[in-house]
């Protein structure tokens, strides 16, 4: 079987599981995991546009994710929980992201990748500091809690049965939570599909040409800076939309859920684990990492208490230290499997 098809089958299976997640997994925590996976697939795929397809390393992706999320959060908090304010919030978040992306892009995409990485890192940390300092507006470190559109409230009855109660299909209550989940699922699926189309379009081909040989792309007559800026803006917009969707799902926005550096590291790990420049790899990477985040910590808790008698080991195995192990895994992956899971499968099958 062709490697590309294998990867697609795996990714589509994951999407299929996500589609039926509320029916397959009825635990609250598992739905939480499913929604997070969907959002992160979009976030990672949009990052893959940059790092995998164009060879741009940006550390500001969480900043754009945060702009989208804070846009919705502030609109819902300052205004009220109607679709009108929601749309205003989303537009504001996307607009700010696009403007900032154009500014950073035009200013610094003409220099080396490394310079760009440093500048985005500086910009992202300034955004993080601003979010915690402007606390009257952003809620500071505590973030903002708000209510969302009434259709997404758990008490809302989406479908009613004969007695006027909430209708159950396969024992799943058709309430606002289901509406919220499918809102997340559909938005993310559409965004992912759009990005797949972008990669397959002539624009995507030019981007790959730039990644492979910048000078030659320039020589053929493509304006490299313009293309790079364009893809940076597209990725920023997609990240902002993902942030808006996630903010609607969580009903809470704070530095830890959107802006923090830890999330940037998550995205990096996901894109490298999944496979840079494959797009479908984003699905695999995001799924594995989110699962690991939720379930690996439990495992480490067990390991930590099992080794309690030994020196140092319980400290290193404690769930708080899980980033340590992720970091080590990350380094090993970049050394030995730079193509990631999807990339490795594709190469191996292609070689036969």
């Amino acid at each position, binding site marked *: 079987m062709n490697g590309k098809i294998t990867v697609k089958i795996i990714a589509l299976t994951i999407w299929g599981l996500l589609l039926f997640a509320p029916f397959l997994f009825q635990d609250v925590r598992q739905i939480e995991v499913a929604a997070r996976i969907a959002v992160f697939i979009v976030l990672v795929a949009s990052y893959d546009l940059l790092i995998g397809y164009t060879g741009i390393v940006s550390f500001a992706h969480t900043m754009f994710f945060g702009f989208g999320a804070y846009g919705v959060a502030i609109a819902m908090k300052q205004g009220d929980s109607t679709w009108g304010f929601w749309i205003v919030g989303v537009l504001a978040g996307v607009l700010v992201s696009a403007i900032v992306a154009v500014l950073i892009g035009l200013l610094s995409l003409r220099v080396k990748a490394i310079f760009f990485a440093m500048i985005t890192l500086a910009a992202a940390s300034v955004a993080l500091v601003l979010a915690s300092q402007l606390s009257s507006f952003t809620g500071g470190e505590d973030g903002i809690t708000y209510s969302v559109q009434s259709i997404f409230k758990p008490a809302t009855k989406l479908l009613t049965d004969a007695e006027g109660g909430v209708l159950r299909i396969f024992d799943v209550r058709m309430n606002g939570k289901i509406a919220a989940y499918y809102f997340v699922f559909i938005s993310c699926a559409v965004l992912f599909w759009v990005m797949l189309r972008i990669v397959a379009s002539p624009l995507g081909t030019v981007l790959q040409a730039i990644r492979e040989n910048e000078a030659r792309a320039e020589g053929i007559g493509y304006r490299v800076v313009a293309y790079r800026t364009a893809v940076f803006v597209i990725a920023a917009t997609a990240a902002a939309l993902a942030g808006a969707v996630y903010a609607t799902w969580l009903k809470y926005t704070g530095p830890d859920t959107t802006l923090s550096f830890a999330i940037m590291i998550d995205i990096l790990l996901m894109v490298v684990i999944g496979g840079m420049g494959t797009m479908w790899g984003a699905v695999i990477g995001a799924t594995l990492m989110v699962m690991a985040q939720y379930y690996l910590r439990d495992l480490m808790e067990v390991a930590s208490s099992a080794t309690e008698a030994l020196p140092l080991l319980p400290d290193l195995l404690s769930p708080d230290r899980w980033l340590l192990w992720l970091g080590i895994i990350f*380094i090993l992956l970049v050394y030995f499997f730079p193509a990631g899971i999807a990339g490795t499968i594709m190469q191996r099958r292609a070689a036969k």
Partner: protein
Amino acid sequence: MGMLDRFGGVFWLPVILAVIAFVLIGAPSSWLTLTVAGLSMGLMIFLMASGLSLVFGLMDVLNFGHSAFVSFGAFVAASVLAYFGGWLGSDSILLNSLALVFAIAAAIVFGAALGWFFERVIVKPVYSDHLRQILITMGALIVAEQLILATWGGTPMNVPRPHFLEGAIIVGNSSLEVYRLFAFCLGAIVYGGLFVLLNRTRMGLLIRAGVENREMVEALGFKIDRLFIGVFMLGSALAAMGGAMWAGYETIITPALGAEMMVIVFIVVIIGGLGSIQGTLLGAIVVALMQNYVGFLAPKLALASNMILMMVILLWRPYGLAPAVKIK
């Protein structure tokens, strides 16, 4: 531009900044305090940033994990100072200084050793691959930060200062903290040493030649790899020293210190231009002065001001103020 360059050019920037701030602040005594604070902070940041700049210039390697050396330096020095707590409290300047020397030396040795490990294990396998270099050094930074958390815990740590560096000198109406003057002097001495090393010795000649044209130096039969690991270790040792001095300056340190300093260090090397210690010093002093002046005039804008400064300078000079290497 020719006129400007002949009389020192961009190196007048800190002076211009200081003059503008003098007018805006209005009170000479506050201005003096802020300027001294800015200069001493600038020299500490210079120590942290110089290695990053040189390593990039020589080998085209940008180490995103550089701030790990700063953090480790700060925590190692703080632990050594805490261990010699008795000596620090005594009135004997000799015991005070001994404890301080031990702390800074420990940080330097640790930084150099860690630098050696970093270069051999983390950076060497990915010399010419920028994308993987950024990713791997970033991964190494995560691991280093977690190791600091596992070793020293997440709670803020108090850093005891030697007795003789406590307090302030009163000049006119302004009070100048002794520690800041000390940091300034030590930083200036290290800068002087580096300057002599790079400009007056054979090794420095090779380093500068390597920054300018690596292939040519290699073709002439010099082993630039060996030189490079030396520069890398020197850079990490200086970063650790900067971290150690920063710990004494802040008196309370948290594991977040490295990440905070990383941003400033990046802004400094971007503004100053990569590959030259003069540029790095200039960038460090401009950033530190700016931070102190703006912190006094409009506290909320302090960090954003450096960001804006960086943007403006990049628009004016895309390669920084005084680079030794052009970024291709």
